[in-house]
């Protein structure tokens, strides 16, 4: 009976995932071609949530928190700290969106390439899985108050600097790729 008890839940779970995959519309929005052409015409999508980094940093700064604790009534300070945490969580969600967009672009380019590197694809899959786990851990720690919101400053600051450097490098690659692609399509 143990065979039966193990087999049936596994099959039902696999089938549930299978039916969800059959009817999921997650990836149907937007044509892969349009995304790829836009990417090679305009470069990789910039992580747009870093745009608000300065405001977020101000909102999350420890001096602001200290000021609130000393000068505002207790309930106001608590309310403000709760809101700060909410802002941090929203910002983290934004980072997730940036990551997802970039990862999706990678997959679209792979799907439209005549040959792909198994190593690159495996690496992207591994990076995506790792990010999802890290995101869940950071989200949970922020949500439960176990992660000082100030630490987000480190993350955002480093990524925005890196992005700026990457964009310069990408502009050159994109210009070259767009030229070849349009030439191939005769546009």
């Amino acid at each position, binding site marked *: 009976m143990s065979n039966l008890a193990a087999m049936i839940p596994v099959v039902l779970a*696999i*089938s549930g995932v299978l039916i969800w995959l059959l009817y999921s519309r997650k990836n149907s929005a937007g044509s892969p*071609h349009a995304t790829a052409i836009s990417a090679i015409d305009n470069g990789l999508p910039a992580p747009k949530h870093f745009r608000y980094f300065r405001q977020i940093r101000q909102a999350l700064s420890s001096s602001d928190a200290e000021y609130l604790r000393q000068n505002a009534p207790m309930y106001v300070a608590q309310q403000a700290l709760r809101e700060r945490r909410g802002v941090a969580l929203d910002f983290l969600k934004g980072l997730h969106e940036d990551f997802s967009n970039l990862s999706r672009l990678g*997959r679209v*380019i792979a799907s439209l*390439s005549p040959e792909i590197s198994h190593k690159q694809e495996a690496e992207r899959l591994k990076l995506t899985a790792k990010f999802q786990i890290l995101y869940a851990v950071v989200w949970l720690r922020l949500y439960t108050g176990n992660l000082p919101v100030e630490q987000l400053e480190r*993350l955002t600051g480093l*990524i925005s600097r890196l992005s700026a450097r990457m964009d310069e490098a990408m502009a050159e690659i994109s210009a070259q*790729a767009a030229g070849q692609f349009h030439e191939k399509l005769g546009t």
Partner: protein
Amino acid sequence: MNTLELVLSYLTLLSLLVLCAFILTRKVVSILPFFTIYAFVLLVDMVVVWLIYEHFGFNSLTAYYSYWVSILLHAVARSLAIAEMCRYGLRAYRGIWALVWRVLAILSVLLAARTIFDARGVPNRVAIYGTTVDRDLALASIVILLVLLLFRNYYGITLEPLQREIALGICFICIVDVIGNTVLRNIFTSYLVSFFLANQETVRSALNPIFQRVSDLWGIIHLFSFMITVGIWCYALRKPLPARQEMPAMLPSSVYRDLSPAINMRLASFNSRMVELLKP
């Protein structure tokens, strides 16, 4: 064969005839030849097994063997239809297809090896071999479909509606087969094991009514779920088939070569910062 089985058999035959008529009128053979073969194998098998029942009797040894041969024939035809579904629509994406077919081929070999390993050592009887092999092949079909859909979903390559409904039908019948055959195999190898052992004629005749009852019950469940599957396929073919999707224009190879490492590098930077964030 009781009245319910008889009625279900007639209804299944009728639904298979409707399915084959749809397949012919919609010219499915031009896009999915192996699915067409699968549907016709189901129809021809049903008629042949029916004729054997009529000629040799429902409880005859010939009927018993022909039933199990037909079940295995279905599994083979279904596997070909699934292989075709994997190839259809994906082969246009040459890079992805080169990756997917290798993964699916390795997986198929592993699942086939598992089937052989699982069937080894069971009492040397067709019914137990049949239930084991049929169950494992159905499970392999589900796993292959799952992996195929995971790939398609990951790369954003959606299934066309017809393929989706065909996959749903195959998935449904495979789920029923896996669960049903697992239960059946458990009964055969525990309560009814004496029925399958040699030199147990007295016990065999005593257990024969139970064996027949179990087989009848499974037959009814199988026929009923099979009718649902055929119904899903008929529903998918009720309208003329839409025009085939255009082949996607491929990007120059250099785009992938240049952009993919850059994208991965940027993704890696997200991860390393997230890790830093968690450091005390």
